[in-house]
């Protein structure tokens, strides 16, 4: 055995000891986040679930947070990595405020900072295992973007993470338009979240909606969606196979 192989200098990222130094799999995860632009600003929706594998373990996880005066962020993926991201963002905003010079980071700046952060971590083979939605309003300009754990980033009028891309985006492509009112926006988001609740196994029926306008940020209290299970196919499910459950 070569002594040089086990020195810190030979830190082979693919070795088993080094694996404990980087993220390999996520543990406690959040599911979809959905975001849309509307007339006065941005609306984000996410449920409050933190899954531990297939177990719906935590049901009071806040996955929507405000960032400074002009932005809100929603995260899916590893919750502990989101907490780390929030620590970084809070520091960023703090130092920005300390300049005390009338300039402040808008959503575009925060989004790009996040992109750099995620991409740099990905390059070190130690990603922050999150997909993020970043939205905000500054000087009347609305901004909505997303970043993935590998640094893929883009802006659009409506974005989503995870299952939201497959179930919510098609709905939004059909029904989103400029100048949605707040009520219309919320209704549209609830429609998306309801579909996700029915079809995504990691969804829980407890969600929050975050709104950001030029005036500021509001994150709603948690609430549940009404669901309908009274389909005839669900009555007497064992009718065709007596004894099964």
């Amino acid at each position, binding site marked *: 055995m070569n002594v040089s192989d086990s020195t810190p200098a030979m830190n082979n990222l693919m070795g088993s000891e080094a694996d404990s130094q980087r993220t390999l799999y996520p543990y406690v995860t959040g599911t979809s986040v959905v975001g849309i632009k509307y007339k006065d600003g941005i609306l984000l929706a996410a449920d409050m679930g933190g899954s531990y594998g297939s177990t719906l373990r935590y049901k009071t996880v806040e996955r929507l947070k405000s960032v400074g005066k002009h932005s809100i962020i929603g995260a899916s993926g590893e919750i502990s990595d989101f907490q780390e991201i929030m620590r970084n963002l809070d520091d960023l905003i703090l130092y920005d405020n300390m300049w005390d010079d009338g*300039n402040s980071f808008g959503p575009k700046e925060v989004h*790009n900072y996040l992109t750099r952060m995620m991409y740099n971590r990905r390059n070190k083979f130690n990603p922050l295992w999150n997909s993020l939605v970043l939205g905000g309003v500054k000087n009347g300009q609305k901004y909505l973007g997303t970043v993935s754990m590998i640094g893929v980033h883009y802006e659009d009028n409506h974005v989503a993470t995870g299952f939201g891309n497959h179930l919510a985006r098609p709905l939004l492509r059909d029904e989103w338009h400029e100048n949605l009112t707040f009520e219309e926006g919320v209704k549209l988001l609830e429609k998306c979240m309801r579909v996700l609740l029915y079809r995504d196994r990691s969804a829980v029926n407890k969600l929050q909606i975050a709104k950001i306008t030029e005036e500021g940020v509001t994150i709603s209290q948690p609430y549940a969606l009404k669901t309908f299970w009274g389909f005839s196919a669900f009555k007497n499910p064992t009718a065709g196979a007596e004894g099964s459950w």
Partner: protein
Amino acid sequence: MFRNQYDTDVTTWSPAGRLFQVEYAMEAVKQGSAAIGLRSKTRVVLACVNKSTSELSSHQKKIFKVDDHIGVAIAGLTADGRVLSRYLRNECINYSYTYESPLPIGRLVVQLADKAQVCTQRSWKRPYGVGLLVGGLDESGAHLYYNCPSGNYFEYEAFAIGSRSQAAKTYLERKFETFKDSSRDNLIKDALFALRETLQGEKLTSSVCTIAVVGVGEAFQILNQETVQGLINEFEIVGEELPPADEAAPPEQGSGAESGPSAAEQGAAPMDI
């Protein structure tokens, strides 16, 4: 200023509480050829005198684009100015890369001032011998700053540095209240007038000066010679002719070693710029 026993080291205070090396560095700025800046609410104009040592050589570059929204004009040791411009460009481009947004000029000048301050507190360094007029934009509009070798910086409506800058400052003091809402052309005209003051009767042509403009919606650019000559002719501000032998203005320095003290400054006469 005269030589004294406290002026060898930048880290030595004089009993009167002065750092002579820093003050000598500011002398170097005063010996350089003039640079002028003025601003309106949405635009900054930088202008400087650009004389070459001989007809054979090129002009010393004294105005630098730092980013689309920021430019600097320097007076003093132009080599120091060049190096600092590279630092400013670096800071701007790194910020743009991380935030997809232009670095607010107010933050850039603080970083520059802090960099200059370091050189006033290390025994193995010397202060930068260059004054910078930094003009640019941030969220609240156009700003003009002056960064000093001492590490101080100030914001100005209009300012002039370098040799015979007092003449320009006198003109600017008279006119500065009109600058705020000035049009682009009038702002440039005022810059040319102020520049002419520093030439003390010499003819103002586009071959002895450089003008640059930056504004909201207008990226920083150095105006080309024909444009400047056109503006000079338009504003009819050609001064009287003077025979070259009478020239008292310090010539521009490339890498030459000519050292002619211009005005009657005694003692410290660092290299001409």
